[in-house]
């Protein structure tokens, strides 16, 4: 029993040290601990690729058994060149991303379509995409991302101004 209490005391000291580190304001964040004794950490599998899972169906990314209507709509949009749902609003000089876009705004420039296609390709690289999502959640990431969008908007505006001057 004595040994047990000594061990518990040690744990308490370690816990206390952790609490002091946290309260000292050492930069940090919570993370998701995944036990690896029983399970391998998330990541690629030998046959299942980057995600380590064989996707039978995924409405976001497709899969081995995608719904027919999704495939058809994807093919149709590819044919009409409307796959890339990015619009360039020449009046305001802003670039809008797919989310929140209406059909009236679907004026796609080849550059924007290419850029969006590259984004989609990159999104498929799941590991990198997950890192991006995590980064976006952090306060630093959110601020940097906002700044990047504002910079993009400003660049578009500059280009529009230049075109007006010609």
């Amino acid at each position, binding site marked *: 029993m004595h040994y047990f209490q000594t061990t518990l005391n040690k744990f308490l000291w370690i816990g206390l040290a952790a609490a002091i580190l946290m309260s000292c304001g050492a930069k940090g964040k*919570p993370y998701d601990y995944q036990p690896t*004794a029983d399970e391998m950490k998330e990541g690629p599998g030998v046959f299942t690729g980057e995600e380590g899972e064989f996707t039978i169906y*995924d409405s976001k990314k497709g899969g081995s058994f995608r719904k027919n209507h999704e495939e058809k709509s994807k093919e149709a949009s590819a044919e009409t060149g409307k796959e890339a749902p990015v619009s360039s609003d020449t009046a305001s000089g802003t670039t809008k991303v797919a989310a929140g876009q209406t059909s009236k705004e679907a004026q796609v420039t080849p550059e924007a379509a290419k850029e969006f296609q590259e984004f989609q390709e990159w999104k498929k690289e799941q590991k990198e995409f997950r890192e991006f999502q995590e980064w976006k959640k952090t306060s630093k990431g959110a601020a940097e991302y906002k700044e990047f969008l504002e910079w993009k908007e400003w660049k578009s505006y500059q280009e529009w101004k230049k075109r007006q001057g010609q």
Partner: protein
Amino acid sequence: MKKFSRLGIFALTMAITILLILPSAQAVDFKISGHINRAVLWADNGNDNDTFFVDNENSNSRWRFTGSNDFGEAWTVGITWEVEMESNSSDDFDIGDNNDTSDVSFTERKIEFYVQHKTFGKLYMGQGDTASNSTSEVDLSGTDVVEYSDIVDMAGGINFRTGDDVIVATIGSVYSNYDGFSRRDRIRYDTPKFGPVYFSASYMNGQTWDTAGRFSYEWEGIGKLAAAAHYTGAETQRDNFSQYSGSISFLHSSGFNITGAAGTRDFNDEPGRDDGMFYYGKLGFRRGIHAVSVDYGRAEDVDQNGDDFDTIGLAYVINPWESIQFYGGYRYHTLDRRGVNNIEDISAVMIGGRVKF
């Protein structure tokens, strides 16, 4: 009892109602994953030695189906159906067993669904992890596929014997890491995360219940810390004991890591029975694809009063690719039992690999 039954029925009704009233699914996925974990185990009980070809019980071979639907911005409903299929579990063998332990064991691990809300937490129904499961097993060493606090997974079926070859007890019966209730048919609730912390509780057949708390935090440039602890009360029809345990692990940015675990069980219905207890410590280092560690474990009065069990181990794991691990581990076990002299020590070596498909 009635109160808990009503609670369970209420929770189930709520879950079904939520499923029915929520809008249609926005994102659906259904996936298959798993791994194979095979090893060669050599052991010596002081009188004899033997070699076995085994499925590593530290993380036995398995596969699973998982699926989930997102409903709106906040709700997710998912399922997990996971089974293990072992041929010769590493903790089933004793020296002298010349045949395979059985044809194959095909066992349930998880058959459950969950309803999760971003604000209100996660509710599980079915066979799966109880709240206490893995609370003694937090480990950031990277060598836990071959050695962690549940040291009996490596060679738990091997018997201690006297010099005259009289059987005393198996390794598995004299050591326990009191890691709660593993996986059972239960209802479990996890709170949402409050910063680095969240809490869980589960209720299962036999009026048994458990509660647990978990912590994980990462400091920039310093390292990661993870910890967990559980408590379960006494005098249930199924598990007539009270028990608590916990574990903590710190991984420094340099790769050095330290892990500790301890727990105790109060055998309520056995007059004169001392509390069983264990503690475990591990020091390790990991860099790149390599991880190495040494550990020590001790258990007292787990099987009967007066038992003292000690073990030390050495482990090495290499991850040449993310989906593949190769490992090797050595473990030395000793037992002192009141009234029994001349108990031989046991040595075991396990070498194998885990391949995620």
